[in-house]
């Protein structure tokens, strides 16, 4: 039982540590770089907060970034940036930034411990990491090493593969389920939706207006301008709802019932694209099964599960079925990981799109047209990689059809209960402690890890569990070639290039991976002629082989490359049968359901926890990474939990007053915001608050993490509950509230 007192104490976090000498060093550094003034310069680069990678035009003056704005030629963001991108220089120039490699001198780990950092040289840092990793691998085998990192940059991926290390990432909390579902139903995953040419758009929880992901938000904006009919199912009235003709406050998790009922109506009334279905899908083969399967999902039934009136569902299904093109976009977190019923939800939405005949058609869900950039392993083929451990700490191999992603939701349980004492060495990069469900469980597990190295930009919470800290460059200091996929009816490639030199002793991820590779697995980091591979040569080769430019320096001058090409719809699909699969035989073969069936979300309100929990990502922040940016923090303000006024009255909670939200695994306190824009049975909590690191001078101690309310998972529970694609259930909780 977590008492309110502990909750409040933890929110207050530990006392601030003195950071003064480094702040002075910081000021001196930037004074120096300003001493040689030169006229403002406009440089093309690409944002790196989210994977849209919007083109940027940067004004650099006297060695400092004066202003960042969108690249006008870029079809992704149409020449604009969101608040995150606009103020990205604040991350670069953050006085709290990690500046030098450091080692821990206090063996006790934890957010409340002073690590006793001592500045060390890069040589010492890299040698230490290499020596400790080699020692752990020698003594306990490669399964004792774990990478908590994305698959990019490719340099890291090579390092992990060369060491035979298991890697976990966040995809179970993100689009993992949808990736698998798209691969099985339409052959490849794609987040490209030609909304601007659609006539009817049905949004299940899709909310990229409020998230300000411009590559997607602009598409809906243009759909609205073009007079599309837009229907929105969401328990919250968000800015997206203002762009919609209708908003239906669906019961959390009930979206699936609506989608199933829509399929029922489309089949029953034959309102699907029969031509497409017969030519390009396995509909003819499985027509009987389909009709029988969806027979029971009537709109009348769906009303009882979703609170959307049956006549409304029927009308919307008919509109969707008779408008061409019609589309139901799904992207990432929107229902792909929210609840335990994510798998049938993603499947049902895929079927809605296939039945609308919109797969790779104008106005539909299409596959991006890109210029393919050869990967690191293509340009420098590595020797065969060692085999990865057959049993993963996160247990993903127990879900045979789940994709090749990691699972954050089960990691803490894997490290402490399933395989206690297995993980001895961790390589951590690009993630934050608060991104994990029940971050405290993982924090406890990290305390016991013998050796952890972290590659970070800011002194985030996870740094407090590291033995060696390697200060990383951020995207405004890096180089890359980015071929984009979000709005890609014709290819567009943009450059990423350093606007100013990397400050202090920060180093790129490529430098870190190559230097560690040289020490730990040199054969994987040599070219055929025996010399070391280098990141600049890789970029030159990538640019040259992709036919973009002679070399990277040339491409830097160009900034971007747009290739006009006509859109030729695909006629074969990369599934096992070459057709879009409504009925997925591979699922049936493995004993899973080949067609989506109704299942409720895991948790429903009870007398003890009477409210649904909804979390959301504020558009002015990128997850957990931008809260130390004072401009963005001022915009987002203190943490506010949204509830309906009638709910507030019941509990004596007043607008702006303190509120205590607790689920079965934890509690948070925040300020209440009363609003008519939410269902009376939901409690809405923003994501991204609750940093505890005393070195984050802006973010520390503001709000608490929504993930303190989200139960971490056990792999057995996933198997037993039929969560067979491993949705991280990032919203599947119920909560109680009272005034704090």
């Amino acid at each position: 039982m977590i008492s309110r007192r502990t909750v409040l104490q933890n929110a207050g976090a530990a006392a601030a540590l003195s950071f003064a000498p480094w702040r002075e060093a910081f000021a001196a550094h930037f004074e120096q770089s300003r001493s040689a003034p030169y006229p403002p310069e406009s440089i093309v680069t690409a944002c790196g907060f989210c994977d849209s990678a919007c083109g940027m035009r940067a004004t650099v003056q006297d060695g400092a970034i004066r202003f960042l704005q969108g690249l006008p030629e870029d079809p992704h963001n149409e020449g604009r940036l969101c608040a995150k991108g606009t103020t990205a220089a604040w991350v670069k120039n953050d006085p709290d930034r990690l500046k030098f490699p450091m080692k821990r001198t206090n063996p006790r780990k934890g957010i409340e411990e002073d690590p006793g950092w001592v500045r060390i040289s890069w040589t010492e840092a890299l040698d230490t990491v290499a020596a400790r990793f080699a020692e752990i691998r020698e003594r306990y085998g490669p399964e004792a090493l774990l990478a908590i990192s994305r698959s990019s940059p490719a340099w890291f991926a090579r390092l992990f593969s060369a060491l035979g290390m298991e890697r976990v990432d966040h995809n179970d909390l993100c689009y993992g389920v949808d990736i698998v579902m798209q691969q099985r139903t339409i052959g490849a995953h794609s987040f490209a939706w030609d909304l601007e040419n659609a006539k009817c758009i049905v949004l299940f929880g899709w909310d990229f207006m409020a998230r300000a992901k411009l590559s997607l938000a602009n598409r809906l904006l243009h759909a609205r301008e073009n007079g599309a009919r837009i229907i929105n199912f969401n328990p919250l009235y968000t800015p997206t709802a203002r762009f919609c003709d209708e908003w239906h406050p669906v019961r959390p998790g009930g979206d699936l019932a609506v989608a199933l009922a829509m399929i029922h109506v489309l089949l029953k009334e034959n309102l699907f694209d029969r031509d497409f279905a017969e030519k390009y899908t396995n509909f003819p083969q499985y027509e009987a099964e389909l009709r029988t399967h969806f027979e029971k999902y009537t709109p009348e039934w769906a009303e009882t599960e979703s609170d959307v009136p049956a006549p409304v569902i029927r009308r919307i299904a008919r509109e969707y079925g008779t408008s061409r093109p019609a589309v139901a976009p799904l992207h990432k977190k929107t229902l792909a990981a929210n609840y335990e019923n994510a798998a049938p939800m993603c499947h049902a939405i895929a079927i809605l799109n296939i039945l609308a005949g919109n797969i790779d058609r104008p106005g539909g869900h299409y596959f991006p047209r890109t210029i393919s950039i050869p990967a690191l392993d293509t340009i420098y083929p590595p020797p065969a990689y060692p085999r990865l451990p057959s049993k993963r700490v996160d247990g993903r191999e127990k879900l045979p059809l789940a994709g090749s992603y990691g699972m954050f939701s089960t990691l803490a349980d894997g490290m402490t209960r399933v395989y206690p004492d297995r993980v001895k060495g961790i390589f951590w990069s690009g993630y934050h402690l608060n991104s994990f469900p029940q971050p405290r469980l993982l924090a406890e597990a990290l305390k016991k890890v013998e050796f952890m190295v972290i590659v970070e930009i800011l002194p985030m919470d996870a740094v407090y569990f590291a033995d060696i800290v390697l200060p990383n460059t951020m995207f405004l200091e890096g180089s890359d070639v980015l071929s984009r996929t979000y709005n890609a009816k014709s290819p567009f490639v943009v450059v990423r290039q350093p606007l100013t030199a990397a400050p202090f002793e920060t180093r790129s991820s490529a430098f870190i991976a190559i230097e560690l590779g040289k020490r730990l697995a040199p054969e994987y980091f040599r070219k055929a002629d025996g010399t070391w591979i280098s990141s600049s040569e890789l970029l030159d080769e990538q640019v040259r082989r992709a036919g973009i430019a002679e070399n990277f320096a040339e491409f830097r001058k160009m900034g971007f490359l747009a290739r006009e090409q006509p859109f030729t719809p695909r006629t074969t699909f990369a599934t096992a049968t070459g057709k879009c699969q409504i009925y997925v035989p591979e699922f049936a073969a493995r004993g899973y359901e080949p067609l989506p069936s109704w299942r409720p979300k895991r948790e429903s309100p009870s007398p003890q926890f009477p409210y649904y929990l909804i979390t959301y990502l504020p558009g002015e922040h990128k997850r957990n990474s931008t809260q130390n940016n004072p401009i963005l923090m001022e915009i987002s303000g203190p943490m506010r939990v949204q509830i309906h006024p009638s709910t507030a009255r019941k509990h004596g909670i007043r607008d702006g007053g303190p509120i205590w939200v607790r689920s079965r695994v934890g509690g948070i306190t925040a300020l209440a915001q009363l609003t008519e824009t939410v269902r009376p049975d939901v409690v809405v909590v923003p994501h991204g608050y609750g940093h505890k690191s005393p070195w984050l001078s802006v973010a520390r101690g503001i709000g608490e993490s929504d993930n303190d309310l989200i139960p971490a998972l056990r792999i057995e529970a996933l198997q037993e509950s039929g969560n067979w694609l491993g949705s991280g259930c990032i919203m599947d909780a119920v909560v109680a509230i009272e005034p704090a």
Partner: protein
Amino acid sequence: MNNCGRLGAAAEGVPAMTSYGWLFDPKRCIECSACEAACKQWNQVETGVNVRWRRVLRRESGAFPNVQVTAISMACNHCENAFCQKVCPARAVWRRGSMVLIDSEKCVGCGQCYAFCPYGAPQFNPVTRKTTKCTMCFDRVEQGLQPACATACPTGALKWGEWKDIENRGSDRMPGMAHPRQMQPRIRFVTEPWRA
């Protein structure tokens, strides 16, 4: 780095005769606050002291489920009849062309301008003990650029331009906003609905 200092000399280059204003389309606003972020980024406005020259205001009406939300991005409207200028005891508020500016050297931080402004545009900075506000990015305008906020707005909800092009477009009223008769603010609101 800080532009909040004396603005007088630097604003000389702004074409004196051209009037500028804002055009806002509430139905396009996604509340992303890129306008406020860009404003702060360009003007290096002090953070953490609640000085927000531009901000997105949100107004709810109706009751669940028939709720409506209007969001507007609001900064100084550089009123034709600027009350801040009239009430400033230090005569720190002055005009260059159509832009209303506060001379920080003359400002005594008394808060009169703030008290009389119905848009909350002038804001007191407790650190410098001066009142500052939106300058319509005169330094950008001087270089032929748009103000930072209008440059940033991703959906085209906030636009900026010559007042003669804006004046007769849309409405001068917005529910919840002070009646424009007295101030004659240089802002208009697009009222046309989306194309059906």
